[in-house]
């Protein structure tokens, strides 16, 4: 049975699970909103950013999207707020704020 991950949840009966709990599609973790874990939030100040891109590879959560050689705003659905990007940014373009 090639069921999609999005259709699998803790309410469906065993007959609808994939055989052997296999998954047949890429990157389904995207459906998990790990942004909810955040206790601090990075804020991107575009005007200060020189697009050096040092922040992007250091993000453990693939939450600094890069498009056409430029970083975009954070993927807040998934950013866990670790603050690594804040410390690697040489231009103070990322501010780290408390979540209220």
């Amino acid at each position: 049975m090639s069921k999609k991950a999005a259709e699998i949840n803790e309410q469906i009966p065993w007959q609808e699970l994939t055989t052997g709990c296999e998954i047949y599609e890429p990157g389904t973790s995207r459906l998990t909103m790990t942004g909810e874990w955040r206790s601090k939030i990075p804020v991107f100040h575009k005007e200060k950013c020189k697009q050096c891109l040092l922040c992007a590879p250091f993000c453990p959560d693939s939450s600094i999207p890069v498009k056409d050689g430029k970083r975009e705003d954070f993927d807040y659905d998934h950013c866990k707020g670790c603050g690594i990007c804040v410390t690697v940014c040489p231009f103070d373009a990322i501010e780290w704020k408390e979540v209220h």
Partner: protein
Amino acid sequence: MAYNLKEQLNKPERFEAGHRLCAGCGAGIVCRAMMRALEPEDKAVICNATGCLEVSSFQYPYTAWHDSYIHTAFENATATASGVEAAYNVMRRRGKIKDTFKILAIGGDGGTYDIGFQSLSGALERGHDFTYFCYDNEAYMNTGTQRSSATPRFANATTTPAGVESVGKKQTQKDLTQIVVAHGAPYVAQTTLIGTLKDFHEKAHKAIYTEGPTFVNVLTPCPRGWQYPAELLPEICKMAVETCVWPLYEVENGEYHLSYMPKKKLPVEEFMKLQGRFRHCFKPGNEWTIEAAQEYVDKQWEALLAKCN
């Protein structure tokens, strides 16, 4: 081909957001960089040992991997990879697949230095075409920071706690990188997460595209286990390299090349003081631990330099 960060980051992401590694976990950075080291047209099968990465990157029904992935147990990522590689060979030979697949194995130091050491050694000796990435965070983090054979001397782990009768782990760590070299693997490297990740990328790429069993040992800080604020990861990696606690080097067909020579080798305490696991070393009366740690690092560094010259 010169390393270009922008080009690398333009590649489609192959390690997806939404995995359940802790905030600031180095392993997430390692996995992303490992997958970027693949040429975009090549597919991969990732064989993962049980550990933090496994429980976090494939929790049913959510996989962070864009490529095929298999986890079977703790001690056998390399044996599993051997089977996948054998399957790849025979299916190619029988004309059942046309794509190029790269076989990658990945485990923490527990699954690599310790419980997985036998299967790693066996697969290295047999010469399967795979690349093993060890994300070495120097203790068994998934079970709560118990000491491993990769834990450095004096580190406070939950099974080697510091106390009035203890200054942390008694033994120095196993030098796994050189043990892998002794197997005759065609490419072996040590790296960590610094700068633009150029060092990591070049070594990972070379390892993946060298035929035969290759090995990349990545010092991978763990904010919980090493007891430091998560955002300090880049600084800790940098200090590991600048103090020569974790020298960057590679060994190609037995020939050693130093990848980075610190302009001024910093004292080992610059690395240790950033981390709570060494806090007791800085207490009055324990100064000797820092001296002993320095002595060990100096000896290892000199021995490595002798091999690189």
